[in-house]
């Protein structure tokens, strides 16, 4: 009783300071009751976006099942999608503890309100896209969730990502395997892969969001929900992707800067994608213009999510 009375008298400011001190010292939170409202909001937003991204991969890669070039490919795609569905299950299960209704979130929410990324909002045209999606997209996703697993100050979330990252790594490996395979199929095929890579690469670079100099919301780093900034994560992505591309003979607009000792893009972010031609315009624009394009979304977002919500289970799926 005395303790409860005492707890009420502690002003919000003080609990906030106490929480931040604990986190700075490397402590993890294990229960919702340990959180301040601000911490909770930042954490829930992070988890909710991660869950939405897993869901968005389902309509994105649905076509990949139907046009898989072999039965092995079909099995691999189906199994990757099963993984993603499992990741969504784990994440929505965690969100239930924070008062979310998973059924509502997945099946009843307006597709407009799903927080998905631009990279996931363009349909695949061919198996080449599926490989590049794994190589570029799953790589970016893996780097993001890997950072959360290593650094997130909410222990249960960090640990739940073990399974997620274990499997996400397979998707990246499969992407590398596919692209290496296609790049050995002669000049015509190499040209086709290069053309699609020109489309995918800037999408992947954008995955990590605005550059650090303009990013205003740093609460995620402040609360150690994430460990690395947007630019740091982008750098890891470049370190993994660019050498691979150089090795298989794909040209990408990025190179290793010997003076700075880091990988740099050959263009200045942000740039816009022409939604009619689906070609990138490498002239730098302002961030508000880029944000407007992200907000508008790609052609697959609304139809894809709507289809997921209304499609009836049954034979037609196969």
């Amino acid at each position, binding site marked *: 009783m005395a303790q409860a009375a005492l707890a009420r008298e502690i002003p919000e400011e003080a609990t906030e300071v106490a929480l931040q001190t604990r986190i700075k010292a490397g402590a993890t939170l*294990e*229960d*919702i*009751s340990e959180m301040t409202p601000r911490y909770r909001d930042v954490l829930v937003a992070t988890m909710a976006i991660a869950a939405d991204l897993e869901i968005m991969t389902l309509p994105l890669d649905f076509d990949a099942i139907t046009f898989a070039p072999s039965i092995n490919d079909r099995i691999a795609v189906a199994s990757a999608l*099963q993984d993603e569905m*499992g990741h969504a*299950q*784990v994440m929505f*299960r*965690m969100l*239930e*503890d924070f008062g979310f209704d*998973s*059924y509502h979130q997945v*099946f009843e929410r307006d597709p407009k309100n799903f927080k998905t990324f631009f990279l996931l909002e363009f349909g695949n045209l061919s198996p080449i896209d599926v490989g590049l999606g794994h190589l570029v997209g799953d790589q970016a996703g893996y780097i993001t969730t890997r950072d959360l697993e290593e650094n997130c100050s909410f*222990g*249960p*979330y960090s*640990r*739940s990502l*073990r*399974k997620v990252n*274990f*499997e996400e790594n397979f998707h990246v490996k499969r992407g590398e395997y596919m692209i290496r395979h296609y790049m050995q199929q002669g000049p015509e095929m190499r040209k086709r892969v290069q053309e699609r890579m020109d489309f995918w690469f800037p999408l992947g670079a954008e995955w990590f969001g605005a550059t650090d100099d303009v990013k205003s919301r740093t609460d995620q780093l402040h609360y150690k929900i994430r460990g690395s900034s947007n630019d740091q994560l982008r750098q890891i992505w470049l370190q993994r992707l660019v050498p691979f591309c150089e090795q298989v003979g794909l040209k990408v607009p990025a190179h290793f800067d010997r003076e700075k000792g880091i990988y740099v893009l050959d263009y200045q972010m942000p740039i816009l994608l022409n939604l009619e031609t689906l070609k990138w315009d490498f002239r730098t624009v302002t961030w508000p213009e880029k944000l407007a394009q992200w907000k508008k979304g790609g052609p697959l977002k609304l139809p894809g999510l709507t289809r997921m*919500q*209304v*499609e*009836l*289970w049954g034979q037609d799926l196969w």
Partner: protein
Amino acid sequence: MKKVIDRQLELGGDKPEFYEVFARRDSAEPLTHIGSVEAPNAELAEARAWFVYDQHIWREMCIVPLSAIVTITERGSKSKVKVV
């Protein structure tokens, strides 16, 4: 047409029922909490646990209904066993 999912059949009604999942890969490993699933009954929970937590070939896997767990350090807290 809206996708029809029978909430009673799939989720056991509007009040969620959770099962905690424990597993180990071999007899040398300790039985470890690996996550949790929502299901209306133990049979479906079994199937879902097997389906979701398939990152390893488990030697032993078992589930415990959350309602059966008595909390000691977190008395009164909503979440009992944490997703690992």
